[in-house]
């Protein structure tokens, strides 16, 4: 594209370049978009193909010749996909709300109050960021069976994920950006620390809370290894665990697997298209370093 632009001679060159430049960018943007969306687009197209449509051919057949929803029916007949969704939503929402609440509570004194052991507690929490979660899975498994008795149930995915040192760290940064005058004025009026935290500080750091909440939700939504250890009853599975069950169930029926993947991916994509703006804005505030 730039080569084409420079070929135009003389005075018109700059103007032509200005006109062609956006076209160059759009072509580049579209190419990247094709690369990012292609595997899912291929899944969507395959999921609509009938039994007579080619799925493995040279050259590849992109569009379904005889579009059908039968593959979706086959998946829904065999696996409780709506239940997978419901379970993922329950876990995601519970983890997000409680985790952000716990993190916001812990982050406030670490950012704004002086007390004995503050640095020690902060570095202890910070240190746990580098502890890989998988390290804890063996003892957590034993506890799930012997202590908490929540093996094969959703609380097993919620309770161990309620404290995130990472979220505490990000929210501490956010609290530190709030001027002390705000809190001092409220203290003069006799407000309790809990009240100051809830009605003055939390509203101020709302963009950071939103970013941390979205991070937490995506992580929970996509979490696989721990849920796969905990969940065995089909009705109780979350989406990623259910998808692996689906892959096993339909092993070589690519059309049905494609239908299953499409069903699970499309809603979350729509969800994030809607919240995209909050996400970008929240991130801008959260990662200032």
């Amino acid at each position, binding site marked *: 594209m730039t080569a084409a632009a420079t070929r135009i001679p003389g005075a018109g060159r700059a103007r032509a370049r200005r006109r062609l430049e956006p076209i160059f960018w759009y072509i580049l*943007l579209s190419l990247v978009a094709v690369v*990012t969306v292609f*595997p899912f687009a291929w899944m969507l197209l395959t999921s609509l193909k009938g039994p007579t449509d080619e799925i493995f051919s*040279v050259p590849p057949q992109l569009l379904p010749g005889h579009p059908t929803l039968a593959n979706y029916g086959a998946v829904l007949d065999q696996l409780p996909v709506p239940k997978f969704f419901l379970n993922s939503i329950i876990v995601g929402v519970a983890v997000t709300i409680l985790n952000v609440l716990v993190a916001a509570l812990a982050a406030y004194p*670490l950012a704004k109050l002086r007390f004995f052991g503050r640095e020690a507690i902060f570095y202890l929490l910070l240190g*746990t960021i580098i*502890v890989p979660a*998988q390290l804890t899975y063996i003892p957590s498994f034993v506890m799930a069976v012997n202590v908490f008795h929540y093996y094969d149930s959703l609380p097993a995915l919620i309770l161990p994920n309620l404290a995130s040192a990472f979220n505490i760290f990000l929210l501490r940064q956010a609290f530190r950006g709030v001027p002390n005058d705000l809190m001092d004025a409220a203290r003069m009026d006799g407000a309790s620390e809990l009240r100051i935290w809830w009605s003055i500080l939390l509203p101020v750091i709302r963009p950071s809370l939103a970013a941390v909440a979205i991070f937490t939700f995506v992580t929970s939504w996509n979490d696989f290894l721990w849920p796969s250890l905990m969940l065995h009853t089909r009705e109780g599975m979350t*989406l990623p665990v259910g998808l692996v069950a689906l892959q096993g169930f339909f092993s070589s029926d690519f059309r049905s697997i494609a239908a299953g993947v499409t069903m699970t991916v499309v809603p*979350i994509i729509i969800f994030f298209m809607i919240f995209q703006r909050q996400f970008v804005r929240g991130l801008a505030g959260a990662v200032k370093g």
Partner: protein
Amino acid sequence: MTRRLSLTPYLFLVPALALVAIFVIYPIGAVVYYSFTEYDIITTPQWVGLKNYEHLIADPTFWKALTNSVVYLVATPIVIVLAILLALVVNRRLPGISLFRALYFVPAVSGSIAIGISWRWLFERNGMINSILISTGILHEPVQWLTNPDFVLPIAIMLTVWAGIGYYAVIFLAGLQNIPEELYDAARIDGCNDWQKHWHVSLPGLRPQIVFVAVISALAALKVFDEIYVLTNHTGGVLESGTTIVFYLWRQAFVLSHAGYASAIAIALLLVTLVFSIVLVRVLERGTEAA
């Protein structure tokens, strides 16, 4: 700042500290203990001293897994460079740009399992990738991508990078939008072209985001499991070609019920993570001093 309230700060911290104690601190202690025992998760652990660690040092699969996990770290610099380039592109004010940004974010939210399954079918023997390569004349014979030990790990790394670019680009984009416009104006007055402008203004301005992304993507790379699990159909690949530390830990603990031995692997994982974190923090500190 003198405080009359003395107990309040601790009350705020109680929920977080209690959870961390139960689900992080205690498990670390338990894993250290299990690593000195023979344990199948069901019966009582039997103390065996250093046997698991002796076994570990002599276990070629462990070294293979460790190597694969360290190799996986190449995903970090690749994803950082590509995500910054993408952020620079989508930072332009073009109509419809937010649609593109949203599209690039699709892999980040769709989850590693859905991604792994989708790509696995693309890389099948008679899948899309071979089909395209054959019909364009690049290949004459289909390649067995996922059963060839040379390809499994690179494909998994490619998937991780592919899924991460849009995600991290959002972080870099946020960073770019925080850089004051005056700095770019000043660079323009000094006669910088587009590339020099980004080199002298954008890149230093993105330092906090680069550090952040380097840390989280490196920690994620050391813990890779899902992509390997799906791409190799939970085998770890031919000749353990895709086996990472976490994958090996999972197999020993939850497939073979060697929880004692798996605990020793977990300790090794912790040490490796610790070493890389210290290296990263060092680099981070040097970076901020220079800034």
